[in-house]
């Protein structure tokens, strides 16, 4: 590779510009969260924390945050649990129609979220049930399950079957083998899958807007209803909090999983 050739420099500049494009909206939200002005966007007139203070005093936003956190955590736990079981079936066993079933379980990725939103709501309507937290939860589990499945499967392929067979031949039963051998080896993928599920659930808006009610608002739904008026510094402040939260989580998760995998090679 000619590292200093003209072509390579152009590639670097191009890549840099794409980064600018991708990050400008994110950076601008964080900067404007400190904008003291009530109306208009730029120019900024100093730096102020007043919108963060206002956020902390807004009970409906705090409630939305609690809803989002509970929903995201429950989604992550359930999707990861059933995702691990399915991944074990796909990687460790042979059975008929394997590929078809795999495609079926991954299909939520390829089905437009708007259709999924309508479909689940319609089903609920037919069952004559009101919208509730449970609807959000099961909907988010379906949305996140394919991602968890993919991440756990990819890791499970790399764990040799021999380890499990060794444990079994030493007298461990299936559950003990899983708890003592497979689970610790799988832990980084479980953490990664769970975190991914959490952030997808925490950030989801397209389908969630169909399922949420006034009592079960999540943070993105709250932002959406605030946007009805117009963009305000308060939304930017809320956005900044969301960004810090959802970006810090995977970074922490990546760090933890690297530590775990180093401890147990």
């Amino acid at each position, binding site marked *: 590779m000619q590292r200093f050739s003209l072509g390579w420099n152009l590639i670097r500049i191009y890549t840099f510009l*794409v980064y600018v494009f991708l990050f400008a909206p994110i950076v601008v939200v964080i900067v404007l969260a400190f904008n003291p002005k009530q109306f208009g966007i730029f120019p900024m007139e100093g730096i102020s924390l007043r919108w963060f203070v206002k956020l902390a005093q807004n009970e409906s936003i705090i409630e939305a945050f609690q809803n989002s956190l509970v929903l995201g955590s429950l989604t992550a736990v359930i999707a990861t649990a059933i995702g691990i079981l399915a991944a*074990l079936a796909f990687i460790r066993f042979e059975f008929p129609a394997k590929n078809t079933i795999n495609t079926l379980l991954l299909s939520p990725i390829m*089905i437009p979220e708007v259709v999924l939103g309508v479909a689940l709501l319609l089903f609920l309507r037919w069952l004559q049930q009101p919208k509730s937290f449970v609807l959000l939860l*099961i909907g988010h589990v379906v949305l996140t399950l394919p991602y968890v499945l993919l991440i756990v499967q990819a890791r499970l392929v790399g764990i040799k079957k021999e380890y499990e067979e060794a444990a079994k031949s030493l007298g461990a039963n299936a559950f003990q083998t899983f708890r003592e051998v497979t689970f610790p080896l799988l832990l980084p993928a479980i953490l990664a899958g769970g975190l991914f599920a959490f952030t997808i659930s925490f950030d989801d808006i397209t389908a969630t807007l169909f399922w949420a009610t006034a009592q079960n608002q999540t943070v993105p739904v709250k*932002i959406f209803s605030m946007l009805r008026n117009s963009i305000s510094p308060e939304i930017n402040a809320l956005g900044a909090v969301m*960004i810090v939260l959802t970006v810090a989580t995977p970074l922490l998760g990546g760090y933890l999983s690297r530590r775990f995998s180093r401890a147990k090679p």
Partner: protein
Amino acid sequence: MKSDKWKPWALLAPSMSAVLFLLVIPVCFVVVYSFWLRAPSGADIPAFQLGNYAKFFEDFFYPRILIRTIRIAFETVLLCVVMGYIPAYFFYRSESRFRKVFLLLIMLPFWVSFIIRTMSWINIMGDSGLINHVLIRIGLIDTPFSMLYNEFTVLMGLIMYLLPFMVLNIYVSLEGIDKSLLEAARCLGCTEWQAFREVTLPLSLPGVSAGCLLVFVLTAGTYLPPMILGGPGNDMIANLIFKRVIGTLDWPFGSAISVILLSLLFVIVWTYNRYLGINQIFKSFQGN
């Protein structure tokens, strides 16, 4: 191993029942509902009639939205390839110590809420937004000019959302190329550009096409960018579904539009799978 036969099914039971009861059956309901009648009272009457579909194709109003959706999806796909290939190639060839950091950064937008990234374009392109502010400051214009609420801003929002998917798909496919092939091409006298054109580019096409399919499907199924960044004339098919179901509570018609959207995507995905194979798409999520 005969006694093992039930085991995979036991492991699969929770996830299969989740997908069956929460996805397959509800989607079947949408199909059934699309044939129902809507009474003036607002109640839905079970029926088997094609009135909802006839209403869609009655005049040009609805088909125009469908065609617009397809056109915007193609534009998004094209722009994502143009904007995404070079960064993916950069990650593949870069020998920088910070390569991992660059890659992590391109994934970062995945973790930032879609609605925040979308609405932030208002901060940038609004009347008192960043671009107008800068242009006025340097004296190019006196009064702010409006850039928002048209198809261009909708495209910006869509690309912002989908570009990381494209970059990742292309990168995964580039990473799979044996670098010794490139060395061989160079040894045989190819220039850097020829080696790229004859070796790298063709071998990376599976990733490009997987990215294209993913971006197309996701574009066709989203309503947020047109809703937040578009004007009245920029609605896409998903906006129509949202308005009919949540706005006017017209379930049968909303279901019929959903079925039309699903059929369109099904034809595209089926054709793609038939000629190219769908599994490439899932690879990009397994990386790291």
